């Protein structure tokens, strides 16, 4: 069914305790697409991802993955459907070695990448297997956070700010890896503050403001919309 989106979010509201953070978010991601969420700090991009994963459990509305409703589903079952999550804070475990971090997420579907293929994609991780996870540099930790999801067979990947706080050379390397993943057929929803970086990879961009999606811009119309985008992002 090429016509049903892989991920379809409609009228999503999400709450942290009493504070109402998302106010009816709607967006969709199709098979094989790379889609970004742009928006200022605090717009609700991370919250959207956490709501998809069930980490923010107080939510209403609809989140469908390949037609399956995720709202109301037990949290540990979401990943098992084939969704891989790379959190903003990277979440590398300090009590685990690099190899243990890499093999931690359980394989949920056949067709995941092998460790050899992952090492080819991220040569920095080769030979570091027994190092404590958090001894890696920030860039290497980011690579590890992406790498560990690729083994699991997940085909939708949620990437929260993969370039945040990294040096330009590392950003370039991560960019190449994301391109390679796109060629392999992964579907990616990515939060990105750096829209110059986003423009090199994404097919479409959603813009969020104060818990709403306020605009959708196809990548080929980015230049034409640059003025509007500057206002949205305040850059």
């Amino acid at each position, binding site marked *: 069914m090429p016509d049903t989106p892989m991920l379809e979010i409609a009228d999503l509201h999400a709450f942290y305790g009493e504070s109402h953070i998302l106010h009816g978010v709607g967006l969709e991601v199709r098979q094989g697409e790379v889609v970004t969420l742009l928006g200022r700090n605090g717009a609700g991009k991370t919250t959207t991802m956490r709501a998809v994963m*069930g*980490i923010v459990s107080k939510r209403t509305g609809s989140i469908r993955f390949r037609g399956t409703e995720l709202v109301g589903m037990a949290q540990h079952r979401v990943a098992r459907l084939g969704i891989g999550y790379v959190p903003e804070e990277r979440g590398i*475990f*300090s009590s685990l070695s690099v190899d243990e971090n890499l093999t*931690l*997420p359980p394989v949920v579907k056949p067709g995941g990448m092998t460790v050899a293929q992952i090492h080819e994609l991220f040569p920095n991780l080769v030979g570091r297997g027994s190092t404590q996870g958090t001894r890696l540099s920030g860039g290497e930790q980011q690579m590890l956070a992406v790498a560990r999801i690729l083994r699991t067979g997940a085909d939708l990947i949620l990437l929260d700010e993969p370039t945040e706080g990294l040096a330009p050379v590392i950003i370039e390397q991560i960019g190449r890896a994301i391109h390679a993943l796109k060629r392999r057929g992964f579907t990616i929803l990515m939060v990105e503050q750096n829209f110059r970086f986003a423009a090199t990879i994404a097919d479409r961009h959603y813009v969020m403001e104060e818990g709403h999606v306020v605009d959708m811009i196809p990548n080929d119309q980015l230049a034409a919309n640059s003025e509007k985008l500057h206002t949205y992002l305040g850059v």
Partner: protein
Amino acid sequence: MVTLFGIPTQALFGQLLLGLINGSFYALLSLGLAVIFGMLNVINFAHGALYMVGAFAAWLLMQHFGIGYWPALLLAPLLVGLFGVVLEKTMLSRLYKLDHLYGLLLTFGVALILEGAFRHWYGASGQPYPIPDALRGGQNLGFMFLPNYRGWVIVASLITCLGTWYAIERTRLGAYLRAATENPTLVQAFGINVPVMVTLTYGFGVALAGLAGVLAAPIYQVNPLMGSNLIVVVFAVVVIGGMGSILGAIVTGLGLGLLEGLAKVVYPEASNIVVFVVMAIVLLIKPAGLFGRER
């Protein structure tokens, strides 16, 4: 008479052996506490009572079903573990969102109830539990006499401790456990059912206490208050070793048992307080414990 530093070697090794046996129990019990604390962030005050329940389970299995020591060594910890699973599922798990003090209070209450109930049913005097036939007698080591059963307790406890350490530090399941200790939310987002893991961890931790209870039954008799006498020292051991450190719990347990034994020969008056003196010193110098990490 052969002496070492002016102490008769017979007495010295005898006390060190006693110390090592006490240390084996300290290690097993503080290991369970450390495993539970690491995962649940709960200080399990019911630990001593569940050690007592393990010993009573073995005794009751023998009294009522004629089930002997060896099957009880497996069954009693299983029963205690099951009790732990039910306790965690029905009560403890409701308290995680509240202050950690609530978990502590709940387990403290459970300890009081268990000890009170067993005291009500079986009285405060000890019930003897026979040493299994295969482990009667002893070995003359030349410098001392080693009762077989005591040797077995040391070996069994060491194997259990090292096995647990290996499972946690070197296996995949252990990696899940360590990861979930650090960041349960993310581990859950990777598709692992963390609440079930927490329940099983608690069950396993208290099963270790149950196992220690069975091992202790032939040595100390079976008595409703056997746990509360021991657990005070075990908590001191945990403080000295550092909360949540697996290896720390094992090494500190054995080490402090030995130290107590040594104190009994060198300066008997101090043997009951030496652990607490060490605790005070450790708290002054390294508050997180010898093996603990500052949080």
